[in-house]
């Protein structure tokens, strides 16, 4: 058998394996709340969607945003405020949060894509910090306390989200829709152009693509999906606080993606699960979370740059990412 055919066979096998694993994963997520504390799984799902949205930008467009907390936490504020102060139903609140995050993404992205590489990261970080200071001072965020006691309400006026299982399956649906959207984006012709920008921006320009517009579109989509995750989290936990807009949160989502595997579909989900799980464990042990997070960062960058899923792909499935 020729090498190309061998490679094709192997990758066909890996696609079958991947599909089986995804099916298994969905079954596990349906069964999870009956085994594990549902609130914990919901937290994992929200962060997993957040990390997948972030990976759309870093993994598939090659842009490292250091300010994604602004979209995650900002959407949480918008959603919590709309639901609590205006009495909007939860689905409208989440939609509003998502649209709000997309709007912020448009403004921040427009400014940030004017510079490349490392400057892009610093600009997103600075703009997100500006939003943080805004949230500290703006009256609607209720300062240090945050917006507390957000009612979960009834989904479409029918499904009572105060019932934990209803809430869980709603979050699972949001997660699956979000990840499916990302999968579609990544595998569309649009996604292919994003990858070409990641691989060689100058060549993409010379082929006639308006790289700036593609980057901005990817940035807005990533921001909107991060907002979807943040707004959903606000409904689940019934509050929105400053924690979600800090630069530490932007760092955390980078860690999830890096640990799981940059540029893989499943990696951010695995990474988010591990980081949220680790933080839960450390919270009771007294060992400071920041030290653990920092150490994992350093180890990942030095010796484990492909991440867990990327490493699995490279070793057992014979391909380097997607």
């Amino acid at each position: 058998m020729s090498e190309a055919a061998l490679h094709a066979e192997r990758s066909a096998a890996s696609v079958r394996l991947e599909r089986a694993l995804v099916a298994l994963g969905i079954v596990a997520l349906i069964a999870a709340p009956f085994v594990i504390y549902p609130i914990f799984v919901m937290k994992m799902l929200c962060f997993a969607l957040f990390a997948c949205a972030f990976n759309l930008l870093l993994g598939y467009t090659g842009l490292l945003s250091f300010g994604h907390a602004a979209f995650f936490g900002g959407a949480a504020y918008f959603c919590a405020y709309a639901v609590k102060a205006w009495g909007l139903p939860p689905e409208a609140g989440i939609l509003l949060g998502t649209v709000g995050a997309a709007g912020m993404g448009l403004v921040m992205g427009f400014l940030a894509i004017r510079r490349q590489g490392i400057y892009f990261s610093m600009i997103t970080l600075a703009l997100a910090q500006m939003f943080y200071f805004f949230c500290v001072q703006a009256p609607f965020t209720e300062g240090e306390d945050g917006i507390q006691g957000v009612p979960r309400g009834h989904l479409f006026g029918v499904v009572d989200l105060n019932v934990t299982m209803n809430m869980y399956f709603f979050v699972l649906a949001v997660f699956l829709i979000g990840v499916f959207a990302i999968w579609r984006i990544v595998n569309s012709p649009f996604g292919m152009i994003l990858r070409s920008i990641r691989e060689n921006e100058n060549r993409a320009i010379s082929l006639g693509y308006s790289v700036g517009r593609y980057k901005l579109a990817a940035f807005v989509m990533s921001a909107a999906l991060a907002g979807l995750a943040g707004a959903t989290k606000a409904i689940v936990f019934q509050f929105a606080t400053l924690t979600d807009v800090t630069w530490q949160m932007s760092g955390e989502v980078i860690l999830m993606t890096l640990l799981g595997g940059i540029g893989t579909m499943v990696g951010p989900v695995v990474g988010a699960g591990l980081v949220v799980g680790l933080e839960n464990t450390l919270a009771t042990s007294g060992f400071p979370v920041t030290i653990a997070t920092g150490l994992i960062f350093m180890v990942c960058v030095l010796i484990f740059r492909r991440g867990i899923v990327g490493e699995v792909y490279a070793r057992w499935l014979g391909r380097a990412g997607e």
Partner: protein
Amino acid sequence: MTMIFGIPIQALLGQLLVGLINGSFYAMLSLGLAVIFGLLRIINFAHGALYMLGAFIGYLLLVHLGIGYWPALVLVPLIVGLFGMLVERLALSHLYRLDPLYGLLFTFGLALVIEGVFRYYYGVSGNPYAVPALLAGGTNLGFMFLPNYRGWVVVASLIVCIGTWLLIEKTRLGSYLRAATENPELVQAFGVNVPLLLTLTYGLGAALAGLAGILAAPVYQVSPLMGSDLIIVVFAVVVVGGMGSILGAIVTGYMLGLAEGLTKVFYPEASNLVVFVIMAIVLLLRPAGLFGRDA
């Protein structure tokens, strides 16, 4: 009382002085970032943590060993610089061939660890560091009252900035450094030990951050969080100035500090935001930064 735009002149000058002090630290830190970035192509996220480390080492030297401010002014940059060189040898030197993003991510992790360790042992509350006896008190300048130590900080930071600029622009070592920034392979071929140069450069940048830290200790409280609050503003300063020129980094640092001080007088609510707003405007009008060469 003399008024300018309906503001008492004393209040205006007082805030301008605060702005100038902040600007001194912005200038020293963005200078270090620019020096490191110029040669290593790494954005040192740990710069704020190294600044905090400098302040804390000064504080610990005083509390545990009774070593005062003036010896600390020499010891602290040495210790932080050596620490920086160790970090460069053990870790950063393995990242040069990779995407510069990894350098940012590694130093981000390093910053979290340094900050986490100090938070774990010393909590988040600030520890006061007394102004050295020689610089206690203040001087009445006629139009305003100037605390002596603050005057010293401005002078010291100017000396540090100009000294570093001279070191890089006028000395033999500086010429190697600038040459290696342009073309490391060629400089290596001429027999200059470029890896050593890289180590020394990171050490110099770290020492600058440490020196800024010990200078800051009597002005601000010595707290584990003092660095991370500052580093993001300094990033904005660096984006405004562009990292192409050392002088640009220094000038931008002072300018933005003063702009922040002025905002505190006229519209205090926005004083936290003004540096970022200026950054956004500069990005719209001059994407490469005020002194930048490359986009």
